[in-house]
């Protein structure tokens, strides 16, 4: 009969992986009472993704198509509104609803791909540092030091200056924004997992380094990685908008939520709807991402599932 006290040892392996890294992963934890919130977030995430995928179907107009004489029309319900444009038009007379839909789509894609790039680089280096140790570890951690001492804005500026403002470059830029976080996380996890009896048991059984890394380590750091991915995802959404603020985001006229907000910010007083809807979408997306990360962790963490 499990009671709370007896259940305690179940958490032991978790607390053994304490260390600051694990602490960090636990950060986005929500109180158990907020399960409802997570459900809402999951629904929201699903809705946003669906809407984004269906953008070409849902959007009434080409997102880049201008109607210069119908500039700055407010959304339906306001004075001067034009019923053709449900959410109004922007500074070039483009349909905001269509731009929001396509912008959401591209933003999600950028953040996702950026996250994946960061993930691949970060996890790879983290595993290498943690498993190989020695000089490799020193060099990788040196790179991490460098990365963490440079303000990212500067790095982004330089990379864009070097490689141009292609979408692919932008994804790369977003990708290198947080690789070091993954690296540190994975390395710390590997180092603490390495001491765990079951890893030791696998070594005692003669398991190769590769097998230990893939079978015993990776699956056990997936949940922290997932949580960090979700955090990362929402950070990238914000980062993309910051880059747009500095004029470094995606090239006009292509719409992303960030570029819509960044380029529309001058109109916040005179035509606030230009910024309001994409800004709201940014908030929703990043909120949903953070909450989803939490949800995913609970979902995938075998240890936590039945508690």
């Amino acid at each position, binding site marked *: 009969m499990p009671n709370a006290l007896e259940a305690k040892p179940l958490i032991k392996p978790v607390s053994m992986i304490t260390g600051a890294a694990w602490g960090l992963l636990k950060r986005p934890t929500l109180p158990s009472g907020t399960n409802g919130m997570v459900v809402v977030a999951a629904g929201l995430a699903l809705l946003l993704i669906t809407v984004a995928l269906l953008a070409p179907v849902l959007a009434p107009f080409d997102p880049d198509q201008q109607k210069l*004489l119908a500039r*700055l029309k407010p959304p339906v319900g306001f004075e001067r509104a034009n019923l053709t444009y449900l959410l109004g038009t922007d500074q*070039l007379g483009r349909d905001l609803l269509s731009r929001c839909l396509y912008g959401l789509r591209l933003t999600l894609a950028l953040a996702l791909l950026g996250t994946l790039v960061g993930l691949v680089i970060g996890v790879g280096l983290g595993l290498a540092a943690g498993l190989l140790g020695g000089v490799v570890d020193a060099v990788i951690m040196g790179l991490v030091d460098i990365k963490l001492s440079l303000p990212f804005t500067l790095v982004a500026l330089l990379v864009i200056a070097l490689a141009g403002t292609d979408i692919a470059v932008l994804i790369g830029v977003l990708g290198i924004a947080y690789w070091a976080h993954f690296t540190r996380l994975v390395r710390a996890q590997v180092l603490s997992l390495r001491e765990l009896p079951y890893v030791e048991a696998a070594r005692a059984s003669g398991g190769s380094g590769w097998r230990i890394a893939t079978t015993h380590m990776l699956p056990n750091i997936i949940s922290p990685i997932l949580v960090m991915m979700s955090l990362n995802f929402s950070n990238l959404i914000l980062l993309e908008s910051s880059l747009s603020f500095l004029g470094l985001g995606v*090239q006009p006229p292509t719409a992303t939520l960030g570029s819509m907000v960044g380029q529309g910010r001058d*109109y916040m*007083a005179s035509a606030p709807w230009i910024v309001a809807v994409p800004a709201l979408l940014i908030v929703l997306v990043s909120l949903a991402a953070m909450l989803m990360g939490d949800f995913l962790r609970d979902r995938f963490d075998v240890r936590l599932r039945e508690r």
Partner: protein
Amino acid sequence: MTAQSMKTLLAAALTTTALVSSVGAQELKVGVQNMAPWLDPGRDFSNVGSQFYFNTFDPMIGKDHTKVESVWEPGLATSWKQTSPTAIELKIRQGVTFHNGDPMTVEDVVFSLDRIINATFPPYTVRQRDTLPNMAKVEAVDAETIRVTAKKPEPLFETLLNVQQTMIVPKKYIMGLTGDPAVAEPSDFEAFALKPVGTGPYKIVEFVPNQKLVYERFDRFWGAKAPFQRVVVQRIPELSSRITALKNGEADLITNVPPDQLDIIAGDGKLKVEGMQTPLFHVVIFNTQNPKMADKRLRQALSYAIDRRMLNEALWSGKAKVPTSHTFEQFGALYMPELNTFEYNPEKAKQLLKEAGYDGFPIRYDIQAAYYTNGLLAAQAIREMWAEVGVKMEINVTEQWTGSDPTMMARGWSNPMYFPDPAGSFGIMWAPTGNSATEGRFRPDATYAEIWDRFRFSTDLVARKRAFAELMQAIKNDPPVLPLYQPYESYGLKQTISWRPLPGHIPYVLDFRAGRIATASN
């Protein structure tokens, strides 16, 4: 935080009791989009710096800036007379004092002009080439007279002795700034640009590069005393913040208000908007030497495809001016709106494209993100207009000057009027020795050069007019440039302040001299 900055902070906290202070007649607060990195009228050519020089420096020959056309007035020269087609003699004003207390002498004047005309300091050399290439030397005739000699006959002596680049600076002060006080070293000029001293009605008491400029009334100014005891110019780059600063009383006057925002200011009973079609063209330039852009029919088509009236309606609420040719009203007799160099004709554009065999390759259009008001918006609108005739444009937002980049295809740019003559606007940019030609994106032929010489150095006005018309025809035929419009430059200010931009100035000048600005008595 250092103890010092802590102290400053506390002091600031104690002194700021009222957040929203009223306009004291003694102080004017100005919010600008950009502040200059240094201030030296002689080497400056930028839209940012030109805002600030007129309050602090004087040229030899003055001008009535309320008039559109050039009406010369005595400046630091009380009188002048052209002694030959290549020489002019000027009597310098007596009793003029620099802000540092030194009297202005003929030495200073010669030094000021000579530092440009016979420049050794590279930043001055640049200006010598684009503004004063025809000047040969400057010398003191006696203690009150100087003589300027030109290489070829010079029809524009007055104009050139009025430009910002020939404003008078103190010789002794500059030479004494660094190193040997008897020699003008480059470091002297660099130091001067951070601690500028002139003869104008306002002296600069504080200058924080890229951030802040404080003028104070100069009581020993030779002319009418400045209306304000203090003028504080503060950089507020973000538009929303700049407008807010005005509405919030943190600024009495703000610059660079795009047309879309005018209603917000005009709708406030305490505020108003002033503006003017500024003598500057936003232009599209082409790299005629890029193999892809070599066919002049392609460039003609791109020019015909842009509906500039539409751009004006949409982006400038119709307030900007769509030109027919590369010409400004300020040119006076040389203003030639009758030339029909640039026009909108999409059908013709399509036809030309067909003739040129345009195969749909994308045209890269370089543009800075925020340097030109509405620049990025215009680029996107032009993209649509080109698309209408079947041309694909890729916008490339970059802070880099790509004018000398062989891969450049098209680019947004501006052609300001540096001085009121076609030579001071079109000429600076498109002369056979101008930067467009030397940077290699514009290759005028010998005929063009010959027409140019006729235009530039004829002392006969009619000959100059005719030559300019020929130049425009050449441009129309093989276009390297397309003026979009003269932007309507707007300023937001308090109702209580009477000030407006004057047509006689070059673009962006903030003229706070006596008679040009006043506060209502409240």
